[in-house]
């Protein structure tokens, strides 16, 4: 850490009094260490980018800076003063979160000024509000009327309005977390212009993104995090994408269990999506998976990968294209029909879908196969129990028994319950979404083992994950999405972090 710090200090121009300084900040969630001794400083009036893969600790760092959580160790100095989380939350740091926090029912001007609506006496000063909003919009080249209702704008425009809200607050530090994830190219370009203009006005901006061209375009300094650790702060001069990629990747992959490449080239195609599109979400996606293959799909935020995964299982049906299962075209793309046709899906977010927190483990793992465990509609309790016990043993789920509740389990064990349910139907095509998000190392290995075992039994496995090392270890080839389209595919010897990242984040 000290070496790294020294390097960073040597490289960065000694600005008069950095506005923000992190000193040895650590934070852990239970057994997971999210940040380990992170130290860097942000000078006044610069655009400072934080770069790192998913899980590198970017969002935890931001939350600490924004005062949403308190670090376990270390200090956060704002303008040279050590501060508490509470002070920073109230202080003049404005953060734009990745998720939209806008009011779709209110006007653009009101969205910009919420919390700070100008008043004259008790009345709202609409004239001043709209005039100022109009200035802001014009300044940043947006062709939006300030009286327009926000809900009628595109998600990208809404995002920009939210950023303008932060700009308007005139905070001395502006944090933008993946601001371009929901934007199209034109909107992203507008945003880049906006950020440059703000910097010219002396605004300090902390910019988090994993889109390398953007970072190279606007950042003065780039801080790279990896595995919750500070790697380096680089001055953005003569940097290339490769320089950044090299520092981002190279995470400790643990023992590399190279995926068996036994997938025969002439094995039958079990699943194919051809020309699949969904309005405003993704276009013309083609994917083919053969029996025994594990195919990874990688895409950064806003690449459309998440929507693609939901569409091919009919959760939000695609608008056009064809889906073929075992060589036969699926006429009706609905989850119920696809499950019956031999497909299975693991939802990406445990909290939202995939578990029934108030029902027993036995109920959870039997949910997709109730019909099979029943005779004339009557559930055979013994078979449900037996299946639950099998799964508990097979995945080494640490529970008191089949009647335990998921909410009493750890994240890793919950995930294993979900995977059990997903595999319960004996599917031939398996779609796994973020199969190891937020689980410990042991559970991760077990889930990977299960996926490999399924492939070895001749099933087709499609893995969507934002954890690139995971995909590299698991998949036979990786399909990369960028800008809501297919960006390319890497396989065989060419399959490496840099190659995938270059497709997903770069310009190639």
């Amino acid at each position, binding site marked *: 850490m000290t070496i790294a710090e020294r390097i960073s200090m040597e490289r960065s121009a000694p600005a008069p009094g950095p506005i923000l300084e992190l000193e040895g900040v650590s934070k852990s969630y239970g057994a997971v260490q999210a940040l380990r001794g992170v130290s860097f400083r942000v000078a006044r009036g610069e655009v400072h980018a934080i770069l790192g893969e998913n899980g590198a600790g970017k969002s935890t760092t931001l939350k600490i800076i924004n005062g949403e959580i308190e670090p376990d160790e270390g200090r956060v100095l704002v303008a040279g003063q050590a501060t508490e989380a509470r002070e920073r939350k109230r202080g003049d740091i404005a953060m734009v979160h990745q998720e939209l926090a806008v009011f779709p*029912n209110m006007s653009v001007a009101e969205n910009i000024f919420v919390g700070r609506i100008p008043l004259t006496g008790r009345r709202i000063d609409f004239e001043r509000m709209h005039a100022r909003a109009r200035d802001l919009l014009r300044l940043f080249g947006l062709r939006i009327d300030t009286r327009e209702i926000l809900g009628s704008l595109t998600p990208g425009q809404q995002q920009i309005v939210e950023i303008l809200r932060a700009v308007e607050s005139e905070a001395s530090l502006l944090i933008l977390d993946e601001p371009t994830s929901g934007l199209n190219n034109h909107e992203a370009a507008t945003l880049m212009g906006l950020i440059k203009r703000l910097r010219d006005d002396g605004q300090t901006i902390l910019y988090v993104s994993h889109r390398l061209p953007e970072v190279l375009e606007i950042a003065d300094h780039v801080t790279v995090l990896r595995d919750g650790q500070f790697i380096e702060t680089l001055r953005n001069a003569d940097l290339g994408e490769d320089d950044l990629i090299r520092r981002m990747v190279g995470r400790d992959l643990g023992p590399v269990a190279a995926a068996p490449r036994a997938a025969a080239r002439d094995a039958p195609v079990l699943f194919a999506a051809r020309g699949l599109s969904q309005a405003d979400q993704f276009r013309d996606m083609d994917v083919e998976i053969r029996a025994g293959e594990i195919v990874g799909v990688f895409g950064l935020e806003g690449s459309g990968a998440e929507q693609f995964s939901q569409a091919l299982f009919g959760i939000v049906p695609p608008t056009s294209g064809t889906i073929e299962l075992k060589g036969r075209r699926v006429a009706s793309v609905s989850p119920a029909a696809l499950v019956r046709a031999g497909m299975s899906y693991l939802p990406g977010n445990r909290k939202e879908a995939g578990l029934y927190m108030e029902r027993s483990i036995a109920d959870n793992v039997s949910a997709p196969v109730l019909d099979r465990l029943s005779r004339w509609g009557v559930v055979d309790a013994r078979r449900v129990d037996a299946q639950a016990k099998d799964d508990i043993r097979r995945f080494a789920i640490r529970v008191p028994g089949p009647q335990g509740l998921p909410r009493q389990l750890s994240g890793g064990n919950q995930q294993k319950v979900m995977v059990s349910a997903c595999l319960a139907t004996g599917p031939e095509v398996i779609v796994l979404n973020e199969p190891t998000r937020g689980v410990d190392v042991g559970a991760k290995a077990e889930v990977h083992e299960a996926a490999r075992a399924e492939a070895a039994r001749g099933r087709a496995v499609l893995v969507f994950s934002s954890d690139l090392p995971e995909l590299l270890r698991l998949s036979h080839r990786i399909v990369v999405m960028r800008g809501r389209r297919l960006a390319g595919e890497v396989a065989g010897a060419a399959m490496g972090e840099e190659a995938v990242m270059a497709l997903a984040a770069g310009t190639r």
Partner: protein
Amino acid sequence: MTDQIRKPSVLRAARLEQESLTCGVVIALALVLAVVSPAFLDPNNLASLQTAVAPNLIVALGMMTLFMIGRFDLSVGAVMGIAGIASAMALNAGWPVPLAFAAGIGTGLAIGAFNGAMVAFVGINHLIVTLGVLYMTRGVIEVVMSGQALAGFTSFPPGFVTLGTWGVAGLSGLFLFALLLSLCFEGGLRLTLTGRKLLFLGGNPAAAEATGIRRRRTEFWCFVLCGGLAALAGVLMTARVGMANRYMGEGLEMQIFIACLIGGGSIAGGKGSYVGALAGVAFVTLLTNAFNLLSVPSAWQAVVIGAVLVAVVVVDGVMVLRKAGRPWSAILGLFPNRIAAGRA
């Protein structure tokens, strides 16, 4: 792309799109009635329309306030009834008119405060709370009135009766008052921070709380306001008809609920205006009037209102799905899960 920034239409910018549609329908309905039924423009009919609109509008103002923050109150009809009775009893006990008036309003405020506390601070679903309170209040009304004739407490001092019967230039004072009140509310909604806060809160509760709006407290006071307005309507109507009527406001909650929905409110919150409440109440009242004038059995009225409500709800659902980017075939088609083959 032209250099001109696309301006939203005036109605959209003022968020009066559905309101204006309802207004248009109301005007059309009035015109048709004027042509079809000569009795429509009869002074008696116009007077009865005014007295029908006035109390409902006052109640609807409170209901619309709750709609804006994504809540509703089913106890308004019962509150209206009990507030009127409370005033009547106070007068009967020899209280002076202002005190009796305050007694009625106070009853409503107290019930509203109970509703609000249960919903905002205890965290019970508002449907359950206000439904329970509707029952409890009706029960109390029955008990209080059980010894009385159908219309108990009929002898009111003239000062009280005037509250309900005054008029200006042939227009009912109550009607004018309700109209004025709704204009004041509309002004407050559009011009003051308090009004805007309601809409911010309804539009995105979590984000609103993050910007410093106090959700629970606002919710509580909205329920209090709603109870108070329902009580006001009840007391004024009691003064108007000159007796405490145990059936006053029965079933009113549904009428008001529907008026607010038709007038542009949404139970999801974040939408609605007091002008819309006015339009909605006018629509429901005119519809009732039309059935009376054309001597169609009143039962058909419920059929029509119900059908209108179903239509409004369905159209709203379709619009939401369309906005989410679902193609028409997936919304209205025979096989919603079929997708078009070929490339986009």
